[in-house]
């Protein structure tokens, strides 16, 4: 593994008086697919949003590099502009802002260029076809009243429009029915085909992974990466759960 796209080094982060990440190391090479697994509350989402510069979490030590550049203290928008994308586990509702205007705003923010409504529609056409999104959907307020599946489809639509170098997909498949998972997987494959972007998949199950060739898997427990491996690690966790890791952690504390 080259590790030259994203490099997380000894990352400690948390909220006031409570450390959540306790020295995380992670290397992602360009175009690689990584799976991040761990029990609830182990720090998966915290790691993802801390990489994105989430102001809720304070980084107490450690560094985050993207393409060799230190992005540890950059603001979220600047990190996004470097080519990182985080698909939210629970996409936020923004009343009064249509999905269309939002996507246009993000395209302009990331590229720094004006995107005309006509150009936007041209660019949206293919991704919308892939995801089976109807045009009427674009005029709805962002995530407001969207079903779980619709929210996730909207996230993947943005992924396809923004074409980041690294996408962190936080439980994109959770709570979706089989059909929705298939559509979302199709979108992720499209992203891979189109820009060969790297992915960190945070997931509890393997449905979404069947569409992807996994390069590496990591298990995070209690703010530490406790195991690294290839795709077979996913299978192992799937059949055995996290118990061994949890016991290991407990043993450490004793």
């Amino acid at each position, binding site marked *: 593994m080259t590790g030259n796209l994203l490099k997380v080094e000894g990352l400690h982060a948390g909220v006031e008086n409570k450390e959540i990440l306790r020295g995380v190391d992670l290397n992602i090479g360009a175009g690689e697919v990584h799976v991040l697994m761990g029990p609830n509350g182990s720090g998966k989402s915290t790691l993802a949003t801390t990489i994105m510069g989430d102001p809720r979490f304070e980084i107490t030590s450690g560094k985050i590099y993207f393409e060799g550049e230190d992005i540890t203290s950059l603001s979220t928008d600047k990190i996004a502009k470097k080519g990182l994308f985080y698909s939210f586990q629970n996409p936020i509702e923004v009343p009064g802002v249509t999905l269309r205007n939002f996507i246009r*705003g993000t395209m302009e923010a990331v590229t720094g260029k004006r995107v005309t409504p006509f150009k936007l529609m041209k660019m949206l056409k293919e991704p919308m076809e892939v995801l089976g999104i109807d045009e009427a959907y674009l005029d709805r307020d962002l995530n407001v009243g969207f079903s779980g599946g619709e929210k996730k489809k909207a996230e993947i639509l943005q992924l396809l429009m923004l074409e980041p170098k690294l996408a962190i997909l936080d439980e994109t498949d959770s709570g979706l029915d089989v059909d929705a998972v298939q559509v979302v997987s199709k979108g992720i494959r499209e992203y891979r085909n189109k820009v060969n972007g790297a992915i960190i998949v945070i997931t509890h199950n393997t449905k979404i992974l069947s569409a992807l060739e996994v390069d590496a898997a990591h298990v995070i427990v209690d703010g530490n990466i406790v195991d690294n491996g290839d795709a077979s690690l996913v299978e192992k966790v799937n059949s055995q759960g996290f118990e061994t890791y949890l016991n290991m952690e407990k043993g450490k504390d004793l």
Partner: protein
Amino acid sequence: MAQEKAKIADIDRTLYDFRNEENESNTYRLDEGLTPQIVEQISKEKNDPDWMREFRQKSLKIYNEIDVPNWGPSIDGLDIEHIATYVKPKDNKMHADWDDVPEEIKDTFDRLGIPEAERESLAGVGAQYDSELVYHNVQKGVADLGVVYSDLESAMHKEEYSDMIKEHFMKLVPPTDHKFAALHGAVWSGGSFVYVPKGVSVTIPLQSYFRLNAPGAGQFEHTLIIVEEGAYLHFIEGCSAPKYNVANLHAGCVELYVGKNATLRYSTIENWSKNMYNLNTKRAICEEGGKIEWISGSFGSHISYLYPMSILNGDGARSEFTSVTFAGNGQNLDTGCKVVHNAPRTTSYINTRSISKGNGISTFRSAVVVNSNAKGSKSAVSCQSLMLDKESRSDTIPAMDIRTDDADIGHEAKIGRISDEAVFYLMSRGMSEEEAKALIVSGFADNVGKELPLEYAVEMNNLIRVEMVGAMG
């Protein structure tokens, strides 16, 4: 339209704040303060008919008898002895051709985008500069339908309309209503008279723009609109002023008469400068099946007292009130609305959003009165407030006076802060913090944005943008 709405273009922040210095010396202003002599002089200037002359003096008397309101934001900073109630450009002829308007006034309005707006999408335009109208024009096709759109003074001197004006002028808002209504009655100047005859539908909006350019002055325009049975009109007013260090006063009055089964939409984008005391009174009365639609965006002024009122006086009359108030640093905006259900099966819907930022205070007051004769009436009030930081303040004061069992009344209020999570979400897609916040606030104000014609919606989003960028320093 949807594409443009939340699209926020950069604008020059000095757009509203420029002054026309040259023009300040080129004006005629009456002495500051308020005496029977000054009021008499205004009458003389305007060649008032006798009834109006008496009306002004009577109003002045009432003004001196009424106390300032003691329940709202303090207006101690306003000293009427230092307000020039009447300021007119030396060349105050009314023009029907834009080319004839004096250069420096034209320059002011051109910078504000008037009358380009007219050329593009309006049926008629009026422009007031300080106390007098400087321009008024209405498209021929609209005039041919019998629609009258002129300044109130000249209409008052026309035989066809003089009785109509006398019959309606300050009947909805009598000078006894409150101190500043009395003041208005005494010193009113300029404004608009609109008459839409029975059955006529004016499909494109009429617009009036008010600009107060003189420092330490007051603007007291009167808008009188009569929409007869079955007619339709959309009237838009815009207001702005450059900022001075002395207090300016706006005490306009709007009276709207909506006939049987007629509809009037009255839209306002107000951006007075932050030294303005905006003590404005607006009222509409609707006959059977008539409908008033208020669309209101309030962004400017130091202090505002603004509560448009609808009197639903005929069976099935309706009122819709949609507003946004944005109180930034140094602003105390006390706004709201009032509805009186005075006939059976009348309905009202109030949908307001208040935003406050910095040490800005935004207070929303609503009063819904359902009289005992208003059986089968419905009223729904929804007010939402958004506070942008820890310093800002927002209050909601709803009042309901229901005098019949047979009415369906609802009220819903929500007060919240801008969500950090939402800001993070938008920033994770590459928007800067200020862009993210401006987009969230624009979305919050969308109840008004989506009701305004495109160019006004864009202007409103620009105003939000300016306020938000200011917030970020």
